[in-house]
């Protein structure tokens, strides 16, 4: 049961300022403030000091928001001599300006970290995090979330969703926490008129029509399952892989990590976890130089199988939300969109 309201754009900064009093506000921000290079500087999610810095007209391909729930480097517990104590982060966070694809990824990560053994580091962060997502009026040329049902707008599994209607926002809430953010400042919101709904519908339709990529992951999956994609194909792709791990680090659904110890002084130290990537050669190396996945092709195959075969088998959803970040990151142009297309439609050069 989604509840809809209308918020005038002039009230947005006031609302955020009020909300920020209770929790830290994270929003997209342009790095570097020189006016001349405004168009080609990076946009990242950061804790906002000044509400006016928030940059909403940015490409959706900024770094994914998984780092706020599963940081690149996270201290797990400190040990001194014989005692170990847990280091946990329970800062309250509001992440504003999240894309639908990222939020769909978070929904899937909730399932992953919450099954069998529950990851408390993720859960304590997740419990204290709220999201305000924004419908993409203008999807990027690299986006292909439409075919996956993860964007450009969401029907469920969000806290608050905003739709930009020109001079006002359509505000939808789908969770208790989201509703409470609005209820405290109900005087800012008004009831939607019939024209608001019509405008919103129009925006959603036009946004869906703007997608340039038509990637059918289901077709690619079916073709992989037939077993017709031989290892030669993956080895051929591997020739273009630089093993940089960019696809893994940028992917909102990649969660592999390494656990390491850092000694700070005699007998004192911290055990921490850090992102790891299955594209790296040493990822599966065991003591005694046993190397299950030494070939580059087999590692790439594993990544695609994980996203296209194992994820749907286990969770019923693809391990890809169509955010297009790997398309932008990959220097060898062997990203998910390209490879899925190649598998689906075919390529004359394929061996």
């Amino acid at each position, binding site marked *: 049961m989604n509840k809809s309201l209308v918020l005038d754009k002039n009230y947005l900064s006031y609302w955020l300022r009020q909300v920020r009093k209770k929790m830290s506000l994270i929003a997209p921000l342009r790095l570097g403030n020189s006016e001349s290079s405004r168009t080609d500087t990076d946009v990242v999610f950061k804790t906002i000091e000044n509400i006016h810095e928030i940059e909403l007209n940015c490409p959706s391909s900024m770094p994914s928001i998984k780092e706020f729930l599963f940081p690149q480097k996270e201290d*797990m517990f400190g*040990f001194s001599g014989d005692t170990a104590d*847990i280091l946990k982060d329970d800062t309250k966070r509001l992440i504003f300006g999240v894309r639908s694809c990222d939020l769909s990824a978070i929904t899937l990560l909730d399932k992953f970290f919450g099954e*069998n*053994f529950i990851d*408390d580091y993720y859960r304590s962060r997740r419990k204290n995090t709220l999201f305000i997502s924004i419908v993409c009026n203008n999807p990027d040329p690299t986006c292909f979330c439409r075919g996956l049902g993860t964007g450009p707008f969401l029907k469920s599994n969000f806290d608050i969703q905003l739709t930009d209607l020109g001079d006002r926002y359509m505000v939808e809430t789908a969770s208790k926490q989201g509703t409470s953010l609005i209820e405290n400042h109900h005087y800012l919101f008004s009831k939607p008129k019939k024209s608001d709904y019509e405008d919103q519908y129009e925006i959603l339709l036009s946004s869906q029509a703007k997608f340039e990529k038509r990637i059918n992951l289901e077709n690619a999956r079916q073709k992989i399952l037939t077993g017709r994609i031989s290892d030669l194909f993956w080895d051929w792709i591997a020739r273009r892989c630089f093993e940089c791990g960019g696809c893994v680090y940028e992917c909102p659904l990649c969660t*592999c*990590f390494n656990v390491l110890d850092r000694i700070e002084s005699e007998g004192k130290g911290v055990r921490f*976890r850090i992102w790891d990537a299955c594209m790296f050669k040493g990822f599966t190396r065991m003591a005694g130089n046993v190397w299950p996945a030494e070939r580059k092709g087999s590692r790439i195959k594993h990544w695609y199988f994980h996203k296209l075969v194992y994820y749907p*088998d286990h969770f019923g959803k693809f391990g890809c939300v169509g955010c297009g970040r790997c398309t932008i990151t990959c220097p060898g142009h062997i990203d998910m969109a390209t490879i899925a297309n190649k598998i689906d439609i075919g390529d004359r050069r394929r061996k």
Partner: protein
Amino acid sequence: MKKEIYLPTKAEIVEVVDMTSDIKLFKIKHDRPFHYQHGQFLMLSLWGKGEVPISITSTYSFHEYIELCIRRVGYITSAMHQLKPPFEIGLRGPFGNTFPIENAKNKDVLFVAGGLGIAPLRPLITMVINRRKHFRKVALIYGSRNPSEILFKDDIDSWQKKGMHIILTVDKKDRGWDGNVGLVKEYLDRPKISFKNARAFICGPPIMIKVTMNGLALMGINENNIFTSLEAHMKCGVGKCGHCYTGGKYICTDGPIFSYAEIKKQTLFPS
């Protein structure tokens, strides 16, 4: 009570026994009662060094301590070999599934071990021997590099006395060895069991597992009845870190025990 899946609990190494030149047996005392089943492993922490998955060697009869049989190969195992007891370490676990011994009831049971692979099989074999009347013929093929590297000789003797058919083989014989010479795969047809209804449990180095599973399948054991314990690089042991993820299975939570049929279907042995 909240369960901390990444936080090890305190334990203490109370005794270290030299088994061979590079294998030591560690006896570890644990604060809380430690319940485990054959085939499971635990995560052993050395503060400031890291964590390694180690399979449990001790049988149920030892309640006061856990035994771990560790070869010196990597960073942490080398560090462990230099420890002098008593020394404090961290333990997590036990993790993983167990050998499906219950469906071997009233059947012939064959164990095949290579080198240190006898260690995870030891609790299972002891359990089978102690409940001998529930099983039909029981046999063990055990291959080592050389006669001095045969582990758990006392256990093997006692198993033999209790009616287990034991075939020992070494890769390289030395003076005083008048037994079998050669790889384990050359002796797969020796045990006098009915292969058709047998259950096989294999543990050893990856290449030996691969060859043995294939060989036993050719001998007529159903692929669903051949079980082995796989190993992988692991960081968490709880299916989160992704290092052991192969063929859609986490070796730590879905395994480490898999049947040959599963291994073939999921291609758990990457080429």
